[in-house]
């Protein structure tokens, strides 16, 4: 349906559905871009509260870019531009059962390299790449979220993959 049913989102059910549709993606976007130091969850909340306060002015089709821009700005206001180091969760991949110490050590080493390499990616590369690899989003979905072309997403992700592999080999 292309015609706008509502021209604003001041109804709570409408607001909630927008929240459910975008809040996780927004959270992941903020997380991969800025890391977890600056409380991406809080920023998501703040951004949606702002959306509610401006609900009369924001059309439903603009709501997504509103919260993404707002949350991004909230982050930028706080971030003293440091290198983002994503934390490494200590969840063990289930498929490996042969966990001898040497293997664990190698894994640890590999993950450290990966962590550093991820930090060295540009923000757009890291966001697109991890949204794809970890969150399982397809190029088209990412393109819609970030308001860029599929081709650009492809470029960012492939570039990120390339860079990561090179760095892991070198390190």
């Amino acid at each position, binding site marked *: 349906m292309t015609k706008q049913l509502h021209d604003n989102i001041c109804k709570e059910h409408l607001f909630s559905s927008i929240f459910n549709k975008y809040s996780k993606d927004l959270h992941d976007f903020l997380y991969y871009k800025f890391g977890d130091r600056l409380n991406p*969850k809080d920023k998501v909340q703040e951004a949606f509260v702002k959306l509610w306060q401006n609900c009369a002015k924001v059309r439903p089709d603009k709501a997504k870019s509103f919260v993404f821009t707002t949350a991004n700005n909230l982050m930028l206001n706080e971030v003293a531009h440091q290198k983002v180091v994503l934390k490494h969760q200590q969840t063990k991949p289930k498929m490996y059962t042969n966990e001898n110490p040497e293997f664990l050590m190698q894994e640890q080493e590999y993950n450290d390299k990966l962590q550093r390499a991820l930090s060295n990616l540009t923000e757009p590369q890291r966001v697109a790449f991890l949204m794809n690899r970890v969150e399982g989003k397809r*190029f088209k979905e990412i393109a819609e979220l970030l308001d860029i072309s599929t081709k650009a997403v492809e470029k960012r992700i*492939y570039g990120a993959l390339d860079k990561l592999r090179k760095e892991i080999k070198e390190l």
Partner: protein
Amino acid sequence: MMDREKLILKWLNNDLNDQELQAFKTLEDYDDLERLNNNLQSFKADDYDSSSELEKVLSSIKTKKTQITRHWIKPFMRVAAILAICLSVYYYSTMVDTTYITDVAQKTIIQLPDASSVSLNAKSTLVFNKKDWKKERDVTLEGEAFFKVSKGSTFNVITESGTVTVYGTEFNVKQRDNYFEVICYEGLVGVTHNDHETKLKPGDSFLIIDGKLIAKEKENRSTPSWLNNESQFKSIPFKAVVSEFERQYGVNFTLMGIDSTQLFTGSFSHDNIDIALQSITLPLHLTYSKENNTIILKRE
């Protein structure tokens, strides 16, 4: 056969069909990619529970709602702030003391915040505070003034030489160089001089010249003579008479061989300088000559 980059891109986008998947698996870097992919999973973003987060947002929106109504109180706050500034300026300006000054040969009548009034003689200063008037009726006086005090709380006239406390209604205070005189015309007046209070009944007077208390006979007038443009003296040192004359006419005296401490009884008018000069010179057998603003007094 697709080239390597296309296969990898398709793999990234979860777009490989069976045939392509087989081809992808034969790539030399297949193991590398799989390992990277597996290890990447451990960098997954923190868990995010949309529904619990939504609850938080909705509850904070509901508390914010009151804040939104507060938003349009903001303009009122601004107005209130401006009002507060205006009020404080007004308050400050009323806090400031009110001052009346008379110059040589000038008299004035001042209405105090209550029904009391003050007649201020020449070359005198009266200071009081409008704001505190209800709490304490204090005026500071330099010079001479006649007070008509309406009933109310204690009324204090503070001078350099002493404080006059009023219980009743009409009295005159004269405080000049080394001269301090209070005459009570009606009611009751207390004079504190050197921490000692003297109460004056109607007709009583209190006079200190050069620090010495001088006894005076009963005053039988109902108002001080200066209110009728006349200065009256009863056994007052001549120098005090002369300085009063200087204040009333704005002239200077030069005394040639005259004892300025001799006592003078009499009066002079404020309206005619020649008659006034005669009034003060004849009784003491003096002659006077005028030169511009200076008057020279000599023995006959």
